[in-house]
């Protein structure tokens, strides 16, 4: 992971979460993870394509997702329904889009795919030959792991 890519994601994840959730948001220590990794319950995935290729994954537990969706909609949501799903998808879109905008300003050109949302238990994601940067964000609603895997196009 090129160092230039790291900061835009860390910064935007923090800024957006503070903006939409309010309250106390902290960033955990960054670390690297190799290919396959378990997913906590709800994962929103945004693909990147252009000068670089890769994807950004937002991973959280169902409980956290419900609380975040409730907070963002300003109402207590009871089930993880269409509205809740759309909310989490939107959050993923917000963060990735702003990060990509920042990277554009630095001269890296690439587009993003519409977010896809995965829910379920005991899921695992494995992408071939990519090392992922994990940015843990701790919010009052629970932990969100921003999982960024980008590589140069060869």
């Amino acid at each position, binding site marked *: 992971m090129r*160092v230039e890519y790291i900061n835009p994601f860390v910064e935007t994840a923090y800024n957006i979460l503070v903006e939409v959730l309010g309250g106390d948001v902290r960033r955990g220590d960054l670390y*690297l993870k190799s*290919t396959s990794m378990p997913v906590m319950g709800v994962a929103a995935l945004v693909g990147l394509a252009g000068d670089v290729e890769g994807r950004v994954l937002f991973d959280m537990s169902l409980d956290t997702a419900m609380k975040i969706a409730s907070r963002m909609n300003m109402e207590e949501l009871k089930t993880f329904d269409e509205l809740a799903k759309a909310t989490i998808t939107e959050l993923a879109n917000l963060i990735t889009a702003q990060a990509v905008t920042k990277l554009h300003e630095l001269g890296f050109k690439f587009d993003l795919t519409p977010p896809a949302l995965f829910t379920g238990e005991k899921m695992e994601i494995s992408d071939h*030959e990519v090392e992922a940067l994990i940015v843990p964000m701790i919010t009052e609603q629970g932990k969100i792991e921003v999982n960024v895997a980008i590589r*140069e196009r060869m």
Partner: protein
Amino acid sequence: MDKTTGQLTSVDTIEDTSDERKERIATIDYKMVTFSLAGKDYAIDIMKVKEIAKAGRFTFVPNTAGFVLGVYNLRGDIIPIVDLRLFFNIPVEERKGNELENMIIVSVEEQTFGVVVDAIDKVVGIQRASIQPPHPLFGDINIKYIYGVVESNNRLYILLDIDRIFGLKQHTAESEVKPQNDADVKAPDGSEDDVPSLPKNLVKEETKKNEASSVKEQTDFDYNFVVEGLAGLKKFYVTDINESWVKSRYNQWTKERGIEKTQLVNEEDANLFLSSFFSPHTASFWSKSYAESMYKALPENSAKQINVWNPGCGKGYESFSLACLLKKRYPESRIRIYAHDIDLLSVSNAQLLTVPPPHDQDWYAPFLTSTVSGEKTFSAEIKEMIFFEYHDCANTSAMPNVDIIFCRDVLSLMPQDKQNSVFEDFEEKLKGNGIMILGANEILTNRVNWSEKEYGSVTVYTKQ
């Protein structure tokens, strides 16, 4: 001991009259802490005792004498803990779980020790003159360690000579305690002459032999301990790549420190041990002479694109130095350096590296520009050559094939299995005509398919 012997006669004469005895008790001039070992009463001069404590769960220290229980953190001071029962070969009750031990903290010549005993009794005041010399028949404890015998309240206390147990004579004390029974059977003090069965020379030779073999065992043991220490303290793993250096360094280390002090107690020791391991100009700018010898090691290469892999780039000194050098060596080629490190902070700041004087006047000069604030930094052309990445080499990487692998002192900091997988990666990614440069004290042994060539101080490896 002589002193007390001298007083013996006077004590005997006084003892007759009860009046004088009372007077003697009244003038207490010696206090001792009494305790028991295997049901018998012992005592230590109170002036040697710092305090009394109960403690347990000592931290075991490998490679120490059997009677050392370990170390203990006494309010921030790390003190060695000795079990007197083990020291004197007195049977010890089996320890149960986390039970606390009775401990007397003694200080001998500014050094503090914890002494574990069965039970601590009380402080007894006596008159110095009433201490009687030990009788050679005291069997339980080697007579050398007994200062004298004292009677008080109808109890006999054996007064231990703590200076002798822990003091300067510790070394001989240890060696005599170790071969357990032999030492005890022998009569005290210089009694070797009394052993009639073996001629003296023979005895000496035999002990020498034993010593020699035990010294060798001891060295192996100590060496392994150093190896473990390096892994534990500095994450430096001794593998075939650096073993020869570690061994020769260990020999030098024993000479420097003495055979007794080879253990790496803390990070400082480990740093000192490794101080001569790291390649020239690690984490600093390269000197002109080092840059020149490196320059000579670079082979002819007319490829349009030259890829370089620089794992463990740290703060970027190495990567930038390499970039300048390659620019000079291959001016026609497009050069790309993939600089990786697992230290996020270092690698993030690497891009912003500035060149302070006097280096900015050195061989780096043609590759520098001035910033607004007047500091020298690498030109855009050089900066564009390097991709700094936050990457763990043990994970899969998406690297193109490379012409040069520049990996100084990185493999040594990986455990064997990780090292193997990284090395496989190296073999796979290095082009047929590519070169690999390792740390100054790292050698590829045991690896087939690699040939080496030396250019001055730089060793270059190529695939066969």
